[in-house]
């Protein structure tokens, strides 16, 4: 999703919503194109696994990407930037 100048990837995992910055910090792949494994998204280019809840990298959690709070309001999914 594009919100202002930001690209945000929003995932719905069995009814639970997560929102993270879409661009992979490694070489810039689009994370919304990556497969989901549990509560992680696997980057489609070089397979770094990003945790959806806190944005941390599975193999080295010192690295992370931005996460966004998601709230549901009826049919609306609200992403707080």
């Amino acid at each position, binding site marked *: *999703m*594009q*919100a*202002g100048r930001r*690209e*945000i990837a*929003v995932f719905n995992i069995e009814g639970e919503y997560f929102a993270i910055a*879409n*661009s*992979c910090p490694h*070489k*810039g*792949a*689009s994370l*919304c*194109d990556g497969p989901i494994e549990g509560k992680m998204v696997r980057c489609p*280019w*070089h*397979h770094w696994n990003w945790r959806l809840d806190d944005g941390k990298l599975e193999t080295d959690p010192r690295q992370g990407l931005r996460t966004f709070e998601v*709230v549901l309001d009826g*049919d*609306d*999914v*609200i*992403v*707080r*930037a």
Partner: protein
Amino acid sequence: MNVMTDPRREHATRIKPQPIDPRGRGYSVVDTDFHIVPDWEALRKYMKEPYRSEVNKFPPVGGDYSPKYATGLEGTGQEVQGRAKDAADVLRIIDEIGVETVILSPGFQRPQSMFNLGILDAACSAYNDFLVNEILPASPRIKGELMINHRNPESGAREIRRVGHHRGVVSVYTEFGGNYEPIGSAKHDPIFEAAVEHDLVVVSHIGTFWQQFTPLHQGTRTWTELVGISAVSTCMAFVGSMIMQGMFDKYPSLRMVIQEGGFWWLPEFMARADDYYLSHPGDIKLVERKVEMGEQFLRKLPSEYFDSNIRFSSQPVCFPKNHMHFKHLMEMCNGEDWLLYSSDWPHATFDPLNWVFHQHVSEAGRKKILGDNARNWYPRLKQDG
């Protein structure tokens, strides 16, 4: 479902993100390493018996040559990003990744590692016939690298002379790996002779199969040790052989492109090779080419052969944590002049061109790395389809 930002409750729009930096479209990008992998069936018709019937039964060396151990991606083999089998696939993919002109590397590294030279000859010739008949005529944007049997330099040279004149052929593929004597030794001269005759660049690409990628495979356990790290030292040894064994003194116009063996090691290599050479020059006169040429020393310092004879394709480019160090490395390795952009599509180490914009590269450097360096290095790149 509506997605909004709060508190402005601005509606977000659903988009199809374009992860390739759009600034790349402003350059005429050349990708110097992109693997095409046709079906064996597509090659079979170009083979004679007994290979035509038997080619799929050759010893399945390297059947597990794939990073799947280390990535958990089953079933993709090396084709992690997808698979280009024909010219239409190639054109579609290079449009997606922002590439104007592509140089196709033979996707089959496995046969190169087989010791059965007859099968290897047959696979090489069939691939080259497929390339010049079915791929290169499709578009002037597609250029190709010949597959040769470099284990048998005489037959490798024969193959270059058989198909090297075809339009769109710009280079010859060889590999550095644990199964091969370094390409710089004089026994490979028939290959260089034929390549120079046809104005073809010779490529030395990481290759062979798990675990013989490198003579250092003994004791390795992991993909990172083997392909990530040890292959770099194998590459350095191969480059060392080219320079120290007088290859560029015998073939001054020969142009090499080194692929996937790293390049940030250049400052150490250049300083060390010069120093060792100056302190130990006594054995140079004994290498085969120097005996043949009646010369005692190299014609210049080892480090000076890079500018005249060697370039590096860029993939996989690695970033130091400190961004300024990237800038320093580029300077120390003459990166803006010696690097040629490559994507390595579809392998696991696929490199989009984004780094050229996201790292410290000057505007002039971007233009050179993304295309001008390759156009200036491959004499036949400009040739029209």
